[in-house]
């Protein structure tokens, strides 16, 4: 047996703990921790598990609402009532650091982890989404990361059998060394079949189920809590390896056990493995546990207690079951050919005692390890970013007026941030489970709830350039735009999960971005009555070059209360009238136009007024319910001209031209590409014109008739013509051409 290292301050520092934190541990225990205990504390107090630098700020978010069945952070995922005795569990999580060094497995295990968070709630996953950000595709390593991440997400979800129904992909140099891979999962559960991550009842057995434990992923949580550097490549062994087949078996067995009623509590083993699940479940149940690691099925010889406790081997769960029902539970896992071993029992002394090879290897109080208990909580220093003085003082009048609007548009429309991500989503099974009404490529994904008349609308969204230029407004816009997308599909926005990707929180300018963005999100969530149900914070998204743009990704859940409300983005028939709802303010700051045509990320983010936004959303949703709307598409990157072009071609089975006039108040090139918020392009049947206009007037919403659908070309302002064929080629083939060469 290898002799364990002597615990010292140096060793604690190597484990990522601070001097202050090491002193705190000694104080809590009344002695120096042994090596195993140091390992447990170091992962439990890592940023990834403890949220020590974010929790104070997160607690300012609105986290209650009449539809929420569990509070934010209380369980593995949020749980929202959708009526009919059904609830939706949903959550988004990052897997950025692993994906930066091992894109395929990093992304795959990200999907695996978030799926387990959903089915440990008792919910069957019915949809997956994601939000991905990479450097630009001119770089070969970026292409490798992009290809690997997409394949990893696809292979895991496809094999597991969850449809990947939507997502977003952005490319910007700031993500070159540190891509962002955020995975979201959505599950459905009956109210009376939910499960909780809790350990109670002295004497109840504790079981480990699923895969065997190996040496993979040790200190994954710690790795996720530091910046990416040249040394990161050496951390490749910290990345776990996914096995979606075992996960699928684990899903079926877990749901069967929950349904049978034998379960007290269950938790996924993600970050920090057995350490995290035993401490968190005990702390939540105000219990203790006695665990014997000799019983843990291992896949390698000679593992130490430290290694078994910190392993992040995937596809494992910790279950507490009712005493006397162990055999029945084992029989279910047996049926699915999965390990199921009793490794200990719940105790009532509030201590976690871990034994291995006849020795007591750890003796700690779970409460001391966890978030909300003894884990440290910090509020970091903030400082207004210095770059604001440059970005905010940009003079837009200095930009040369674009003479050739046709060419300018084709350039903007070819931007990799705008064109279709067909190359990506065709690698995902978007239809399995036969609920997908609207798959990837529209404003939001629409997933049918079988045996009801309802559907869910789902969306992930964030424009990080806006957040970079104005964290407060950018945070608000991320929420507002997600909700707008839900409404465009005919849904009522219900609740939010978020994945907050930022740089190093110890840098005051980064912490300013973080706290302001969260404040903005909170304000928008309150205005739209969409509480935050949980999510994930990922700090340290920095590479030697720079920090990523602050990227608070929103995952939005919406409810479509009647299937007849389902609306899609694209034009439906010739001769329909096209309207723009909302009012343009010719805002070019942070726009795709500014970046693509002028190579600049300058100015302020577009303005956002939540009262205007609310009014727009309620008017649009009511118009949809009144059957006045045939198509609805949010105006975002690339402005109104891009939105209209997309409406023409998104449905490749029936592309329809349009003839539109977009009035400019100051400059034509600004009005066409402006990204002013709270705007939507709709098409309506001419017979409904009067009703629609009157309804807008009644609601005090500004609408502008832009033109008519029809023909095989898009004509803008009477002068600029685009054939549907040329638009189709650019939109659907740009990315595949790059990736297939």
């Amino acid at each position: 047996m290898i002799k364990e290292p002597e615990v010292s301050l140096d060793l604690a520092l190597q484990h990522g703990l601070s001097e202050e934190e090491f002193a705190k541990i000694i104080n809590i225990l009344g002695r120096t921790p042994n090596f195993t205990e140091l390992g447990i504390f170091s992962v439990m107090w890592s940023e990834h598990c403890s949220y020590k630098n974010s929790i104070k700020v997160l607690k300012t978010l609105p986290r209650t609402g009449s539809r929420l069945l569990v509070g934010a952070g209380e369980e593995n995922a949020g749980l929202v009532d959708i009526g009919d005795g059904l609830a939706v569990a949903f959550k988004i999580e990052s897997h950025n650091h692993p994906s930066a060094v091992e894109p395929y497995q990093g992304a795959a295990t990200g999907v695996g982890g978030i799926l387990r968070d959903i089915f440990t709630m008792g919910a069957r996953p019915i949809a997956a989404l994601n939000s991905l950000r990479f450097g630009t595709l001119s770089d070969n390593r970026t292409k490798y990361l992009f290809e690997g991440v997409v394949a990893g997400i696809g292979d895991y979800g496809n094999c597991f059998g969850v449809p990947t129904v939507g997502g977003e992909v952005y490319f910007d140099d700031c993500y070159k060394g540190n891509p962002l891979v955020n995975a979201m999962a959505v599950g459905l559960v009956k109210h009376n079949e939910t499960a909780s991550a809790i350990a109670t009842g002295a004497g109840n057995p504790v079981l480990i189920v699923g895969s065997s434990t190996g040496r993979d992923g040790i200190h994954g949580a710690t790795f996720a809590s530091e910046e990416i550097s040249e040394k990161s490549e050496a951390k490749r062994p910290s990345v776990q390896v996914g096995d979606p087949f075992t996960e699928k078996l684990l899903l079926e067995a877990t749901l069967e056990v929950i349904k049978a009623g034998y379960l007290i509590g269950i938790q996924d083993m993600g970050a920090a493995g057995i350490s995290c699940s035993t401490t968190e479940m005990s702390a939540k149940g105000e219990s203790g546990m006695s665990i014997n690691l000799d019983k843990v099925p291992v896949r390698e010889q000679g593992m130490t207690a430290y290694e078994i406790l910190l392993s992040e081997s995937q596809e494992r769960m910790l279950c507490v079951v009712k005493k006397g029902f162990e055999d029945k539970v084992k029989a279910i896992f047996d049926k699915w050919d999965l390990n199921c071993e009793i490794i200990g029992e719940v105790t009532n002394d509030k201590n976690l005692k871990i034994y291995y090879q006849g020795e007591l290897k750890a003796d700690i109080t779970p409460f001391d390890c966890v978030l909300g208990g003894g884990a440290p909580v910090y509020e970091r220093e903030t400082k207004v970013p210095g770059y604001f003085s440059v970005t905010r003082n940009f003079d837009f009048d200095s930009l040369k007026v674009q003479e050739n609007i046709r060419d300018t548009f084709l350039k903007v429309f070819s931007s990799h941030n705008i064109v279709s991500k067909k190359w990506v989503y065709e690698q995902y099974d978007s239809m399995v489970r036969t609920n997908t009404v609207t798959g990837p490529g529209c404003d939001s994904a629409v997933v049918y709830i079988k045996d009801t008349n309802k559907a869910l609308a789902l969306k992930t969204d964030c424009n990080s350039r806006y957040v970079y230029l104005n964290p407060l407004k950018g945070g608000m816009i991320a929420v507002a735009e997600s909700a707008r997308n839900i409404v465009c599909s005919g849904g009522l926005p219900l609740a939010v999960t978020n994945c907050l990707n930022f740089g190093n929180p110890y840098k005051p300018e980064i912490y300013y971005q973080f706290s302001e963005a969260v404040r903005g999100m909170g304000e928008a969530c309150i205005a739209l009555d969409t509480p935050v149900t949980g999510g994930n914070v990922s700090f340290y998204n920095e590479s030697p070059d720079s920090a990523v743009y602050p990227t608070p990704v929103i995952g939005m859940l919406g409810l479509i209360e009647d299937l007849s409300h389902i609306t899609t983005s694209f034009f439906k028939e010739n001769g329909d009238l096209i309207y723009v709802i909302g009012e343009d303010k010719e805002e070019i700051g942070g726009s795709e136009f500014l970046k693509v045509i002028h190579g600049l990320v300058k100015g302020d983010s577009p303005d956002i007024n939540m009262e205007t936004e609310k009014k727009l959303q309620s008017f649009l949703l009511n118009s949809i319910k009144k059957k006045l709307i045939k198509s609805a598409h949010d105006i975002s990157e690339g402005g109104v001209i891009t939105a209209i072009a997309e409406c023409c071609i998104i449905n490749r089975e029936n592309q329809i031209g349009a003839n539109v006039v977009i009035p400019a108040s100051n400059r034509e090139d600004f009005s066409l590409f402006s990204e002013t918020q709270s705007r939507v392009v709709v098409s309506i049947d001419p017979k409904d014109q009067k009703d629609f206009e009157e309804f807008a007037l009644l609601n005090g919403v500004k609408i502008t008739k832009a033109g008519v659908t029809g023909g095989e070309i898009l004509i803008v302002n009477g002068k600029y013509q685009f054939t549907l064929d040329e638009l189709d080629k650019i939109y659907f083939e740009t990315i595949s051409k790059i990736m297939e060469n």
Partner: protein
Amino acid sequence: MNPKFGVVVFPGSNCDHDAYYSLKKNLGFDTQFLWHKNHSINNSDVIILPGGFSYGDYLRSGAIAKLSPLMNEVREFAEKGGIVIGICNGFQILCESNLLPGALIKNKSLKFVCKDVYVKVTNESKVFSSGVKGEVFKIPIAHGEGNYFIEENGLNELKQNSQILFQYCDKNGNITEASNPNGSVENIAGIMSKKGNVLGMMPHPERVCSDILGNSSGKFIFNSIKFYLKNI
């Protein structure tokens, strides 16, 4: 008689629920799940081997599933003329089990592909395609290994016996290279056994049996089976 459908559940099947729901709720057939470890098809009239990733498909798609206990009964049932449909992974299992000729190899693109495609019914099967020969249906595919391969003699035999039931085509029914999504020999999307009672196909008809999802074009196969069983 109302036919009784049995949907086999292998570990890793993930279109089993879809097939069950479509048959039972959308088409109104008597439908049951059949657990792969059992040795009974429980009086099923039609057996569905559903899509998914049986045993993770880590070795070769379908290579382990063919050894599942229930496959003995499925083989016996098929040899006696029982109706068996393998969809996607089910098609792969049928080829591995030698209930159908040929093999399904990695897509030409080397990537998984999920999208709607068009298939043409290129032969009349009184079991599976009664009255729809020559018609074109829009049906989705979702697979990484759907590239049908068979050597020349085998292909000739398939042709001579009119065993090729579905071929990938464009919207207008033209069987072109551009409409071949995975590199399959002669755009083959589905074939039958010599006796015509076993069908393997890569497209997913069970995914398109609901107007709510906007496409019911997969129903014809199951309705054809019902019609056939009623009239024998």
